């Protein structure tokens, strides 16, 4: 990744570069295979309906992986994702668009590490936050 983000570049309130995803049923099947999460809720409509869903739903873990990508894309090769927390509050359905977003809530130095806290979330096409969360990253400095 060409653009490296540095601690000095970040200000509180700043937006994390958004990441747009559009998982279709094929992607859910691929993720089931790659992750080993074979819960049929993610590929069998009948099972999903029996659990009160209108159709299959996107894996929470896939949305967690999208939010991790949001952060690793933003921080560049020299940045490190340190903490990641997600809550699966709302369901997402294939092949609807999922937009991953974030804002910087705090920047600080602790134990010699340059840390940045972000509020992050996934948004469905209605603009609802289906997966709110938070991340802490360690960034390099220019100095």
């Amino acid at each position, binding site marked *: 990744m060409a653009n490296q983000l540095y601690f000095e570049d970040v200000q509180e309130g700043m937006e994390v570069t958004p990441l747009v995803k559009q998982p279709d049923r094929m992607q859910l099947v691929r993720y089931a295979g790659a992750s080993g999460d074979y819960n049929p809720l993610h590929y069998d409509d009948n099972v999903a309906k029996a659990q*009160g869903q209108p159709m299959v739903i996107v894996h929470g873990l896939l949305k967690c992986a999208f939010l*991790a990508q949001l952060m690793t894309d933003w921080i560049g090769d020299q940045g490190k994702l340190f903490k990641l927390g997600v809550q699966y509050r709302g369901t997402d359905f294939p092949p609807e668009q999922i937009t991953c977003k974030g804002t910087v809530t705090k920047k600080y130095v602790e134990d010699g590490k340059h840390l940045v806290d972000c509020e992050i979330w996934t948004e469905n096409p209605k603009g609802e936050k289906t997966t709110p969360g938070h991340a802490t990253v360690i960034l390099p400095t220019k100095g």
Partner: protein
Amino acid sequence: MTQESLVTDELKAAIGVESAPALNEVEKGAIRKFAQAVGDPNPLWQDEEYAKKGPYGRIVAPPTFLVTMASGRSARPVRPPMRRGLLDGGAEWEFYQPVGPGDVITCTSKLAEAYERPGRMGTMLFTVTEQTYINQKGELVAKRRGTVITF
């Protein structure tokens, strides 16, 4: 008839009991498949030449690749209550060391908490499980605290 608590004695007894360790050998192909399934084209996960020049000197796995790993068999297996479904409630991760091909990651897990809450479809059972990931050098790689909702 009063409804029995979903937090059974069996469940309570399992809290804090560490599982057997499970060894997970990390394969390059598994990392690539995972990154492709997520649709994450970051060359650090897949491009050996590129990754060699990067901060880790080798390919590394996307952070949540750890979900692919087996955690050890529970010393006190708990039969889940017969209900309509299971939902992943979310997770908290902390990442300390990168994971790459050839690493052997030992994962252990334990039930940390169990509680019930009223919900839209009746009483829901929340179980919180903690996983610890340690590499072949004995370094702490990551910790995960995940919540599963049974309803």
